[in-house]
């Protein structure tokens, strides 16, 4: 609750800081201080210090899992602002503070989605997340690609919101309440209203996390949006919606698992297939990362499929590992002016440190041992094996993980084994702070890969 109230207030503070402060560096400092406060207040809340005592009724319930993910999300946004905050100036200095205000509002939505107890709050949270994202996608006003991406995202997003609302209305008709813990699934298990509502919810949530076959908007939107904002929406937001997804299906539809499990399995397999196979054929690294985010979403879908203790731990680890690595890669990408593979040629010779950290991020995404990405994938596979059925899914996921190595290694190969030619793009010389944060994130990914208990122990102590 601390973080939820504070993030809403900080959003308003950021709005006005744009009017009062003129220097971008000052605005950025306010945002960083705000994020640190948010992180501290969330940690305090987790350890039992509550600033507000509000009767939350059936609307919200903050459990340890939600608190821990919220901390991870705030930390990822902090890393994001530290790494790419300066690059946002290139999108527009005039509205610089407003972008940070939108980040805080998105965080507010994330806190709602990760701890909702009522479908009303889930709906509000999802909308508070997506409406700022429409704005961020279209923030490059003169760029036709950005316009197109935001219009597509908006129309498709609003459409899926309509589907979700219809699902909620049908569930309300069957159950007579929006509070998910009061659902009585045993009384009327096969009620057509309930099943129809659940499927509509499944489709709309799949849309929001870009799972196949509802992934078609993702590559265009991620490609068209300004690179700095793609980094934000492809990482923290996606992981948060997954937390809401698993919360919904565990707490609300857990008893209906036999009905939806096969659907989710097929969706996960299709997502893995589409994401990985299409990513192989991409010529632009930005577009490759868009497809890679679909592929990673396929792995996270496995957690929804399995729905056990391992799955929840794994999802947390996956969210952290994937978000950190992708934010790191995008922060490097946003300093280049060309996104083709050739532009990475010979980067290792010019920027050895940046290339080394980038390699760690890519290895983590590909799931190579000793990185957090490997352990996250391992937890997912373990969770699916523990269900004891659908072992074809495990084999398929492993196969697809092997395919993903190809396109991640193409970037590493370009950096280390290609000569810098005429294609290699100019790379903005990074400052000392940027390099330090990059090294810190890389170290964190290795540390989580060796000792996942660093993160997961927080769930229990």
């Amino acid at each position, binding site marked *: 609750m601390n973080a939820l109230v504070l993030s809403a207030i900080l959003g*308003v503070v950021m*709005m*006005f800081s744009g*009017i009062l402060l003129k220097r971008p560096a000052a605005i950025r400092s306010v945002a960083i201080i705000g994020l640190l406060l948010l992180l501290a207040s969330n940690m305090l809340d987790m350890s039992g210090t509550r600033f507000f005592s509000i009767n939350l009724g059936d609307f919200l319930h903050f459990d340890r899992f939600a608190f821990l993910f919220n901390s991870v999300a705030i930390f990822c946004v902090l890393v994001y602002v530290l790494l790419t905050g300066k690059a946002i100036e290139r999108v527009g200095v005039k509205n610089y503070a407003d972008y940070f205000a939108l980040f805080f509002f998105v965080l507010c939505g994330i806190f709602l989605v990760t701890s909702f107890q009522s479908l009303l709050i889930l709906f509000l949270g999802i909308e508070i997340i997506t409406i700022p994202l429409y704005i961020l996608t279209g923030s490059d006003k003169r760029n036709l690609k950005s316009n197109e991406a935001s219009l597509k995202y908006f129309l498709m997003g609003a459409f899926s919101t309509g589907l979700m609302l219809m699902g909620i209305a049908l569930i309300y008709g069957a159950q007579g309440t929006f509070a998910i813990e009061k659902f009585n699934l045993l009384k009327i298990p096969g009620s057509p209203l309930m099943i129809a509502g659940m499927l509509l919810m499944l489709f709309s949530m799949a849309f929001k996390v870009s799972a196949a076959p509802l992934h078609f908007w993702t590559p265009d939107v991620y490609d068209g949006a300004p690179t700095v904002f793609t980094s934000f929406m492809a990482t923290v937001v996606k992981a948060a919606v997954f937390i809401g997804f698993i919360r919904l299906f565990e707490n609300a539809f857990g008893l209906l698992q036999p009905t939806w499990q096969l659907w989710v399995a097929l969706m996960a397999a299709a997502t893995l297939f589409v994401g990985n196979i299409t990513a192989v054929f991409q010529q632009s690294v930005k577009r490759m990362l868009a497809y890679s985010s679909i592929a990673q979403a396929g792995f996270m879908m496995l957690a929804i499929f399995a729905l056990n203790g391992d799955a929840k731990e794994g999802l947390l680890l996956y969210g952290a590992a994937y978000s950190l690595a992708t934010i790191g890669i995008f922060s490097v990408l946003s300093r280049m002016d060309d996104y083709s593979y050739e532009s990475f040629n010979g980067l290792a010779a010019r920027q050895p440190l940046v290339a080394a950290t980038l390699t760690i991020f890519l290895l983590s995404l590909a799931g190579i041992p000793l990185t957090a990405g490997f352990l996250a994938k391992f937890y997912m596979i373990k969770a699916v094996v523990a269900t004891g059925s659908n072992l074809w899914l495990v084999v398929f996921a492993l196969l697809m993980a092997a395919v993903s190595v190809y396109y991640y290694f193409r970037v590493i190969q370009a950096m280390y084994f290609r000569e810098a030619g005429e294609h290699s793009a100019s790379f903005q010389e990074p400052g000392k702070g940027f390099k330090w944060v990059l090294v810190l994130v890389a170290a964190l990914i290795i540390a989580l890969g060796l000792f996942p208990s660093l993160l997961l122990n927080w769930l229990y102590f």
Partner: protein
Amino acid sequence: MIHLLQANISTSAPSSYLPIGLQIAFAAGLVALLMVLTHLLGPRRKTSDKLQNFTSGIESHGDARQPMAIKYFLTAILFVLFDVEVIFFYPYAVNFKELGWAGFGAVLMFVGFFLCGFIYIIKKGALKWED
């Protein structure tokens, strides 16, 4: 006494739709009557000047369906936003007495956030028409 315009919601007999029917008949009848009356009673002089559109004495030219200046768009959108937020006052108005001071505090907070948004759009210059 029979309340002609008071629907009895506890039964769903056809007679309970009578008030609605009366209202529709009254509304349609009034419109028809007024139109017929103006047609019959009003004087008519059909000269070419009379048939022209009257716009404060300026000679009219061109089509009325021209695109409007886009700066009105922002004002219109902001109006829609602030207008719709007001629906949260309806449940509060209905339960005004029961909610007491706690409800008043909550609504005050809501209005406070609202005002923040309003000050923000003024400071951003969203309501300035001349530029």
